[in-house]
């Protein structure tokens, strides 16, 4: 492989790791509630701001600001679940049978609300988060990378593995998987489904916020910063099979690499369209994604 292809592959895989942090949470939410959270990008935005403002305004060390951003995202996720998601499984929305439509509207509205709230309170300016490592250029064999990107990618891998293990082996992880597979059965078996949903939203909000925090030195926090990563994670969860966590991780890495090569060999201008076209094709012809088992519900 020529030097440029190695660069493209490495760069694509690193981008994919960041995508995965976002997509795991979205996928878990779909698994447990069968909805797409259209405010997912705003969890990411909240994290980017929390990290940047805590570190810059209060002079808190970056290594403390980073977990604080996770907690902040988890808090927003928890509030969202308590106030807006409960009707989805406890049946007291004003929408009656139109449960899916309620979820679309309410998360879409929440997204608009959070974007405009931050725009008004913090302002429309972009803030650059402080990097975790100041070194701006590290050479690793054939590849060059900024210190921050390297460290952030390492943290990303650790968090992804940790989350996957948590879901697979922990007590609550098992309960969440049980609810995802069969909500009614799980609740008959004595599992507290409301608590499982709350945990999923906290984890999902926390992970998205964590991704925002890790990337804030690169992307500069601004109110609408989450819109784009959210679109990427929609693509990923569909490609990976809605609700499948391993599927999402693989799809994230794949999308990162596809975009990286596509931008150079196909078209730089249309690089963001590749994923979206894949998304439409999958939804229309293979809605269970690459790895999902269940078909769509009609």
């Amino acid at each position, binding site marked *: 492989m020529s030097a440029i292809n190695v660069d493209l592959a490495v760069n694509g895989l690193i981008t994919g790791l960041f995508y995965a942090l976002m997509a795991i949470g979205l996928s878990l939410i779909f698994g447990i509630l*069968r909805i*797409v959270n259209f405010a997912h990008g705003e969890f990411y935005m909240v994290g980017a701001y929390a990290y940047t403002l805590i570190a810059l305004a209060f002079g808190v060390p970056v290594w403390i600001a980073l977990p604080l951003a996770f907690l902040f995202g988890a808090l927003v996720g928890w509030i969202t679940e308590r106030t807006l998601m409960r009707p989805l499984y406890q049946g007291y929305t004003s*929408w009656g049978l139109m449960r899916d439509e309620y*979820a679309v509207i309410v998360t*879409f*509205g929440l997204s608009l609300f959070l974007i405009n709230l931050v725009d008004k309170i913090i302002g429309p300016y972009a803030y650059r988060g402080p990097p975790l490592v100041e070194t701006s250029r590290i050479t690793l064999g054939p590849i060059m990378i900024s210190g921050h990107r390297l460290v952030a990618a390492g943290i990303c891998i650790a968090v992804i593995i940790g989350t996957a293990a948590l879901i697979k082996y922990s007590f609550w992880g098992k309960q969440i998987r049980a609810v995802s597979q069969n909500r009614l059965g799980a609740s008959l078996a004595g599992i507290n489904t409301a608590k499982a949903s709350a945990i999923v939203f906290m984890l999902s909000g926390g992970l998205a916020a964590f991704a925002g925090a890790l990337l804030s030195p690169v992307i500069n926090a601004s109110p609408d910063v989450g819109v784009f990563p959210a679109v990427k994670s*929609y693509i990923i969860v*569909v490609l990976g099979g809605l609700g499948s966590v391993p599927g999402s991780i693989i799809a994230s890495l794949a999308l990162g690499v596809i975009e990286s090569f596509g931008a150079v060999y196909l078209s730089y201008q249309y690089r963001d369209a590749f994923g*979206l076209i894949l998304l439409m094709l999958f939804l229309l012809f293979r809605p269970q994604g690459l790895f999902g088992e269940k078909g769509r*519900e009609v």
Partner: protein
Amino acid sequence: MVSTSPNAAGASSPAPAMKPSSAQLTTTKTTVEFRAALIAMAFIAAIPLFVSNAYWLGVLIVSMYFAILAGGWNLLAGYTGQFSLAPAAFAMIGAYTTGLLATYFAVPPLLGIPAAIVVAGVIGLALGRAVMRLNGPYLALTTLSFAEIMRLVISNSIDITRGDLGLSVPGMINNRIVWYYFFLGVLVALLVGFYLLLRSKAGLFLQAIRDDEVAARRAGVDVVFWKTAAFALSAASAGFAGALYAHFAELVTPELGLIGQTGLIVSMTVIGGIGTLAGPIIAAFIVYVISEWLRDVGGYQLIVFAALVVIFARFFREGLWGLAKSGYKKFSAKRGTST
């Protein structure tokens, strides 16, 4: 036979001996809403008698643009249950159709606008057909991707569309007042069209599909045809609005198709009352005019509107229209008992 007077729906009147069929109920409800919308339009038609400031007339014209979009989206989402996230994209498609035709082939607006309606309608037909079997989150995601792809293509094909730089479009009418009544005429025509459609058999089919698609199919309703038709109609009306806006603003940019614009359209519909004929159209005026009004006092309006969307979705599905209706019922009930 047209329905009885709207007052008959008041709670004070004793329950009718015979339960009216659901078809009759729907027709009555739609007629009440249609009359309310017509009264609102008459009020809006009178505004230029009192307001001559070109700026506020412009604000009202843009409100009408949004009213057409909200009305069209409501037809699709409120009456057939297809929650497309692409209405702004169809407006953008309409605007660029007439804009590009004018730029490259010097097509006059009076031909460009119908062309825009047709192009948006045909694309809507194709998309509607493709997403036929998708529901809920799948439909929302597919239409969202479609909207984003359209925007990306238009904003990156700089050599053809001038991308984010915006495309200058020739004007059509030099007089604000004439523009005002032109937009209003289109809005009223669409309103009447939607009313006639909903009052006809088609309206019943659409709502039957929304409430229970499987049952509707069993009852012999051509589900594929009606769902696709609604999608195409909604897209065509959005394309119409976009084309008009292009010639009014004399500029089109890909901003017309931003997700935020769809957000505004959804907000207006939900605040006004989704699935009601009058609510979304009236709410478009309320939301947009208040936005402009509050521009100078801090611009908190978008936060408030977004919060309203969440609150209305959570608690009041029929939006402002529903609130007004139940308020009216309470009022007439009270008056009924006191006399």
